[in-house]
């Protein structure tokens, strides 16, 4: 047993273990997600994170040690964000056809998401670091994390909040949109993409390709819009509160 412990300590100190653990946790989590017929509640990222956290805390391995290996996966977030230019480029014809309604919906919805989240959090009296981590939560995860990091929030908190936002949006959108009697698939998809990014987009694609395409457009546009608005708007809100 002590030999096994020594082996673990040795392996945990190399980047190899963190990397291996990340890939296996994700594959297991994705298997569970597929078993649950891609129900958004069984989100593979949340399950994978829970698996890795469980292993790390059971073995008393510090996060920093794990991240030494996992950083190789984490690094790819940068090029992946740049790669979002391609699906956005493919959506261009759809954007051109309804430019004004989509731009109006984007600005209204994105500002609502940012302002309402920060104002509610401030009313509860949470510290600024939490407010900053919460503000970009409707943007796609890589962009939201980069914003939080840049403005002094906690990127890891943002990552989890963004995913929770996506799961909540994907689960509740149908009820919200039905109550408001929104029937047009392109409007339903776009709202889902703006408010709950990639997870909402995945949900929209389960309903129809048209809804999914508009959700993808909403996700891309809101990622960009949030990246330019939050760094300007958030300091103004925080100054106004003080």
């Amino acid at each position: 047993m002590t030999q096994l412990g020594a082996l673990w300590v040795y392996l945990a100190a190399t980047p190899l273990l963190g990397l291996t653990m990340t890939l296996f946790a994700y594959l297991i989590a994705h298997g569970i997600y597929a078993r649950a017929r891609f129900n958004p509640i069984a989100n593979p990222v949340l399950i994978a994170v829970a698996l890795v956290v469980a292993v790390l805390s059971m073995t008393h391995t510090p996060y920093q040690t794990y991240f030494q290996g996992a950083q190789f996966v984490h690094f790819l977030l940068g090029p992946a964000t740049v790669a979002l230019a391609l699906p956005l480029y493919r959506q261009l014809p759809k954007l051109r056809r309804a430019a004004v309604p989509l731009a109006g919906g984007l600005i209204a919805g994105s500002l609502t998401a940012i302002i309402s989240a920060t104002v509610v959090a401030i009313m509860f009296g949470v510290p600024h670091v939490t407010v900053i981590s919460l503000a970009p939560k409707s943007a796609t995860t890589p962009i939201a994390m980069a914003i939080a990091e840049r403005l002094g929030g906690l990127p890891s908190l943002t990552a989890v909040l963004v995913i929770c936002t996506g799961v909540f949006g994907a689960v509740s959108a149908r009820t919200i949109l039905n109550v408001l009697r929104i029937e047009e698939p392109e409007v339903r998809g776009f709202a889902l993409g703006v408010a709950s990014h990639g997870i909402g987009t995945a949900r929209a694609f389960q309903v129809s390709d048209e809804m999914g395409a508009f959700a993808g457009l909403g996700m891309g546009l809101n990622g960009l819009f949030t990246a330019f608005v939050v760094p300007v708007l958030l300091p103004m809100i925080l100054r106004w509160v003080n």
Partner: protein
Amino acid sequence: MAALVALVPADQDATPGVTRVIIPKSLLHCSTAWLVKPHPTNHAMLRALATLLLFQCFGEGLSMGLHVPVPGPVIGLLLLFGYLLIRPSAVDSIEPTALELLRHLSLLFVPAGVGIMVAADRVRGEGLAIAVALVVSTTLAIAVTALVTRALMRRQMRRARVNTPSEL
């Protein structure tokens, strides 16, 4: 004494003073073919990845150099988008690699997400506030986006109807 070793095909004569290592001609053929003609798809992927990294570098550089608070990769996204508008032919060479990377996008969030085990200590006791903010804000965002988009779409359709004269 240093020995000179030459890899020669089986039917070639030996150069004096050089140790001959005879290898079958078929093996030599396939090994040189591999060296001269690398697999074409390997290059396409590397080139696409290099392009993505290059645009990220441009983005990070602009973000730092101009003191813009917008994250570097997001500026890189915009620059690449602009580049694709100018040169649509570049889409086909970058797209397969870009889509492959995006297909596994969820995996890339895991390392940061695990950081919640460190961040959780700092937000202990704020769980309720965060949950309420998240639920209220996401509900409102879906509703407002949908209502505003639909209202503007209907207006656009009405205008289009007014502007195109009826056939009758």
